[in-house]
């Protein structure tokens, strides 16, 4: 389907308080604009009940963790750009999307829209026990 996207869930303590969590989130938020069109991502802070629920649902083991299509892919290791591209490509829903992602392997991170992208992912905005997170 044309509007099908790769789902990325980032399990964190809190991307504002915890620098490791913050740079896990930024590794996704700094992906190039072309990749941004193909992914949907959400921060799940374990400080919130929703975040705890997602941690249990995905069988998380450590924080922070990047999950791609429900797989625990980067556990306590901030990925290199190419590693992220490769892991997303492996899980792309269509061959066309896989090829499009792979074609961006040499592009590298973009830093001009990080804050905007982090805001869309709810970064730092749901860190209380009763915070609601929607993916």
């Amino acid at each position: 389907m044309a509007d099908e996207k790769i789902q990325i869930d980032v399990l964190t303590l809190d991307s504002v308080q915890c620098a490791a969590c913050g740079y896990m989130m930024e590794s996704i938020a700094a992906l190039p604009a072309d990749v941004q069109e193909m992914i949907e991502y959400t921060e799940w802070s374990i400080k919130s009940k929703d975040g705890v629920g997602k941690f249990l649902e995905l069988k998380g083991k450590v924080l922070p963790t990047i999950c791609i299509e429900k797989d625990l892919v980067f556990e306590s290791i901030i990925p290199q750009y190419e590693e992220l591209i490769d892991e997303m490509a492996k899980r792309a829903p269509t061959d066309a999307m896989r090829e499009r992602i792979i074609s961006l392997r040499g592009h590298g991170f973009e830093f001009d829209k990080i804050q905007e992208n982090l805001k869309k992912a709810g970064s730092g905005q749901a860190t209380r026990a009763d915070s609601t997170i929607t993916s």
Partner: protein
Amino acid sequence: MAKQMLIDAYRGKRTAKPPWVPYAGVHCAFLINEPADKMLQDPELLAKGVVETAKRYKADGIPLVFDLSVEANSIGCDLKWWADNVPSVTNHPCSDKTPKDAGLEMPTKDSGRWPVLYEAARIAKPQLDELDCVLMGLFCGPLTLASHLAGVRIFTDVYKHPDFAAEVIKFAGEVGARAAEFYAEMGCEIIAIVDPVASQIKSETFQQFVTPNCQPAIKAIHDAGVTSSFFICGDCTRVMEDVCKIGTHGFAIDEQLNLVFVRDLARKHGVGFGGNLKLTLALSLGLLSPREDAIVSLAAGGQEGYTFAPG
């Protein structure tokens, strides 16, 4: 409250009981009913928050701030402020150039928020001394500061562009040494390098980039005759041996590590260790009993080189 006991534990020595440090951070603002952003920019409120928190929790030591944006902000990074959290860094001046090409310079006592911290320390220090509580200085470690400067690309650059990464992280280490000197001048008797993202890399990368670039700060701390530590977060199992060997008197870890494993490693290397009350699962969410969690930590930590603290 007992300063000497805390210093002894940080240096790996036996103590009559485990000393206690609440890494209160912006929780100090909550306790004095002020927003975090206001407290962190007002020296009188900051001193009040730290002293009130030390009294309330009967702390043996307390950090002046637990805010890893101070150093980045003092050399040109912009901040986003939060009412209930530490500020976050919003731009990366070295995302496409070296610190030299970006025109970055070493911070002075007048840069960024350093004047606020100097003034807060001046107010808080005598009050903490009266409580027999150590004023602790915590500053941003080289890899975390390099991440603030260059952004997330630094984790790719350590493999793809090691010369660039080395330049940024070396600069960050020198900034850290300056911060250590500032905290020593403020009268901090324990000064810690806090490098949370150093848990997110391989051991070889830690040895290549983190260990050498902590040495200027460790030297500054030891030249000042005070006690050093290295704080790391997350699941840092793969770099724990490197942490023990970095050259500080001790280290502190977070709730994700097994304290028995950490204790045995610390004792093998003759360094102090601190942690690891479960900040999230017990203290924040209450999914575990904080009391039982504390008992487990105290039993595992023992009385040789151990500081009881949140993880």
